[in-house]
């Protein structure tokens, strides 16, 4: 390819890469500024002209975050809620997806269509009745309200079914003939076979729970039960303007997801792209 390149093509390549690099810079710049701002004291943060880098590494914002806010608690809450939601959603998706992939039963098609139909349903439709239900259950301002309602994920069923359709029936039959119970077949045969899709679901569900904002905003009122997403914006308001602390919290709060992304980049992209399967 390189050998036969004309001069015009070489120019296009250089210009193209310069433009792409400019896009990359514009993409990363706000993140760099967030990190830089987290190390600036207030008077530096609000001084003109704005400097890209802090004069010296100032740790005060992190100190405020850890000593004067519930940040550590929020971080723990986010972690606990995201893990609980993810594990439950994966188990429910695996079980139901397995049934759809490998069993024949009455109303199979109708049930599957029902699940698919709710894939594109905006969450806004159910907010009001779900909120009333939480009040009735006495679940307002509890972790239950943040975890349980989101453990039945249609996309999970779809992904698991897709993966397990490829498993030969003979394999299951052989296990049944060997006297394995249905639950044992599920846990020892199916779950290991579904590992790739479990990873994809894990990333998808964990990220969406970690980043969730609207539902916690509606249902959680006690500062101690806040998630990170709920806690950080609460630091900016009429009574406090802790922008530096907010930036350090945003940086720390984004780290877990970035780490998962860097470690499992391929699966991560697969997980997000899973949305594309809907078409």
């Amino acid at each position, binding site marked *: 390819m390189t050998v036969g390149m004309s001069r015009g093509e070489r120019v296009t390549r250089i210009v193209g890469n310069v433009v792409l690099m400019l896009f990359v810079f514009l993409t990363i710049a706000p993140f760099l500024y967030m990190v830089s701002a987290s190390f600036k004291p207030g008077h530096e943060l609000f001084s003109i002209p704005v400097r890209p880098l802090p004069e010296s590494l100032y740790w005060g914002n992190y100190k405020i975050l850890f000593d004067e806010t519930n940040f550590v608690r929020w971080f723990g809450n986010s972690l606990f809620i995201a893990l609980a939601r993810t594990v439950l959603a994966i188990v429910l998706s695996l079980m139901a997806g397995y049934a759809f992939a490998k069993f024949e039963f009455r109303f199979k098609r109708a049930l599957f269509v029902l699940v698919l139909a709710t894939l594109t349903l*905006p969450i806004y439709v159910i907010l009001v009745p779900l909120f009333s239900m939480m009040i009735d259950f006495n679940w307002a301002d509890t972790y239950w309200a943040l975890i349980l309602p989101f453990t039945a994920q249609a996309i999970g069923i779809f992904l698991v079914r897709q993966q397990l359709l490829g498993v030969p029936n003979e394999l299951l039959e052989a296990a049944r003939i060997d006297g394995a119970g249905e639950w044992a077949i599920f846990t020892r045969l199916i779950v290991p076979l579904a590992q790739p899709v479990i990873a994809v679901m894990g990333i998808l569900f964990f990220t969406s729970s970690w980043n969730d904002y609207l539902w916690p905003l509606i249902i959680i009122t006690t500062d101690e039960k806040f998630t990170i997403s709920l806690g950080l914006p609460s630091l900016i308001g009429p009574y406090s303007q802790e922008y530096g602390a907010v930036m350090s919290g945003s940086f720390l709060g984004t780290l877990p997801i970035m780490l998962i992304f860097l470690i499992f980049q391929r699966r991560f992209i697969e997980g997000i792209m899973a949305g594309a399967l809907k078409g």
Partner: protein
Amino acid sequence: MAHQLSQGGAAVAAPAPVATRRSRARRAPGTRTMTPYLFLAPFFIVYGIFLLYPVVDAFRLSFFEQTGISTPKFIGLDNYRALFSDERYLKALRNTTLYALASVCILSPLALAVALAVRSFIVPSPNLQSFYRAAFFLPYITSFVVIALMFGLVFDTNYGLLNSFLDSVGLPTPNWLRSERLALPSIILVAIWTFLGLNSLYFLAGLQNIPDDLSEAAFLDGATRSQVFWHVTLPLLRPTILFVLVQATIFSFQIFEIPFLLTRGGPSDASLTLAIYLYDVGFQQFEQGYASAIGYSLAVISMVLAGIQLLLFRAFADD
């Protein structure tokens, strides 16, 4: 649960292997046993309580006037009728539509251009390709909340990064988020920044499905790059383009966090979106009936868009 299921399994397994084989041969696996239903039950119990019931209940509520804990009053279609003369709703609908149009007309072509560039001879090395991919993907994995907080600082009139830069090169420094004219465009800018990478990835996936030999054959026949693009690549990419456009539109109609945290929908509703309005009506004014009607209007818009997607896909499949 585990216990119940294994018992069910044990009941199915016959004692003698030979008998099992014969009885299995007569029917498909799992027919007429409880097993599939036991596997389905946990999902569908949660699904029924927390999704299906609220969907039905919201539909019922949308025909009632109910504020706070007052007794609901049946008013038929009045909530839906009120939508058409509700200035705030219409403003939110207008803003949201403008925002969706920007996604379709600016974001999607830009994403396609990025994907084409990354995939073309401009970026020859696979390592550089994955670098671009990862860099563009970064905003999408960041929470909307952090994005809004970050851009709050970027857009700040006096101490923001953007105005500081504009000032240093001698350009005017507008009041981005507090101006009626610029609030919505600012939000759109942030949204483009957020979703450019994701949409490029969708296009990249679509481009990867197009076999290279097609364009190579066209090149051998003497076609130019632009001819190959318009006559080979673009037609084959139609399903992906359609998917991205519909996806972007549906998503645009649901935007909440970024405008909510940056502008609260203001100033004077200049950046109010349907989702923010629903939140206001349902959870600030506690007009549950009316909020449900707004929710259903949003759902209908999404369903119609998804339906169009499905129909067009069929039409393309028939081509």
